[in-house]
């Protein structure tokens, strides 16, 4: 491989990525809040109570988007893992390691809120059915990816090992999604993501979709924050960080 092209990949991207994402961050935060506030308001206030589950079904408005995100983030990481392994793009590795704790957090939210929903409705905090178990495995895979990358000193080796582990873990995604179809589970089958009209009243569906969209922007927000922090930390001694520091100092001194 051409050495110049390789170094271009290694160093060229961050000095472009860092300032650009810095400008994007406030807009992403604004869009997140613009989706979250009506989503929460409709979900908690205006959506009618369910005919069977009463007001307890409102837990859905964090549980379902968090569970969707826990799977979406893994899928995005798996795509980045292919890019990282085939094209050796370091930015893809930074994206994976920055996403892992976010994905783990969403999986944890899905598990905890599911537990708080399961206790009053099913009569149990936790059962070892296929859906719950496969989601718990997803959480452990996220933690494994994070631990593996941080356990290996050489970040090039760490990035490759982490990408391979990410790809291996991707088989869990169809298992989670189809667990409620393939096996008898206590968990309900899909309400929205099925090849049919959603089995949920429109007034309950709209806040769910708003919350789901809000969580997408929340992920983007946290991801960019995390990637920027990780990039700075790793490239502390590099020229592009030096330039940023000098620009900051100039702006600071000029401001005084």
């Amino acid at each position, binding site marked *: *491989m051409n050495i110049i092209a390789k170094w271009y990949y290694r160093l060229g991207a961050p000095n472009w990525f860092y300032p650009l994402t810095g400008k994007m961050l406030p807009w992403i935060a604004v869009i997140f809040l613009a989706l979250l506030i009506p989503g929460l308001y409709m979900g908690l206030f205006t959506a*009618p*109570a*369910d*005919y*069977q*589950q009463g007001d307890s*079904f409102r837990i*859905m408005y964090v549980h379902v988007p968090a569970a969707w995100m826990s799977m979406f983030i893994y899928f995005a990481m798996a795509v980045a893992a*292919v890019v990282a*392994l*085939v*094209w050796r793009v370091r930015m893809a590795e930074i994206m994976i390691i920055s996403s892992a704790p976010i994905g783990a957090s969403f999986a944890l939210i899905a598990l905890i809120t599911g537990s708080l929903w399961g206790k*009053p*409705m*099913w*009569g*149990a905090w936790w*059962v*070892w*059915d*296929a859906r719950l178990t496969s989601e718990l495995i997803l959480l452990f895979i996220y933690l494994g990816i994070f631990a593996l990358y941080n356990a290996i000193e050489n970040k090039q080796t760490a990035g490759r090992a982490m990408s*391979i582990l990410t*790809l*291996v873990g*991707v*088989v869990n995604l169809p*298992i989670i999604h189809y667990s409620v179809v*393939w*096996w*008898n*589970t*206590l968990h*309900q*089958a*899909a*309400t929205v993501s099925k090849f049919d009209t959603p*089995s*949920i*009243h429109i*007034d*309950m569906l709209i806040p769910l979709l708003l919350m789901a969209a809000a969580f997408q922007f929340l992920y983007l927000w946290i991801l960019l924050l995390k990637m920027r922090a990780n990039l700075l930390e790793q490239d502390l001694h590099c020229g592009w960080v030096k330039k940023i520091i000098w620009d900051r100092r100039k702006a600071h001194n000029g401001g005084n």
Partner: protein
Amino acid sequence: MSPVRKKRFYMVLLLLTGVSIATFLIIQAFSQNMMFFFSTTEVKQGKAPADRDFRLGGLVVNHSVQRESGSLKVHFELTDSQTPVKVEYSGILPDLFREGQGIIAKGRLNDQGVFVAKEVLAKHDENYMPPEVADSINKAQLASSEPVQP
């Protein structure tokens, strides 16, 4: 793609295929164990273990729930719409327990073929709607399924 990248790409594909096949085989092998519960028909066919606790799932048969006065003991029948199984349980039932509801009970069969439950969980379905809509759907179904009484 350059030859090196092509080779790496095929390695990635190979890895994914290998892991998928391995997972598929593992799932095939453990499929029965990953069933959270047995249906009532499976139980009547003797597919459930006799010597240890297992879970039985089905819908509560309409008008089958009988509570013993003065105790928490309750008798009801579960069915998968083909085979009903008698169940007895003593304890607090989940909020969603009602006739027609999906229920999963954990316990074992006694000598009379009655399922003695130690734990009862309610399974809700994937439908969400306000009570008024549920009522009107019910009414519409009743109207279409039952011929008008003379």
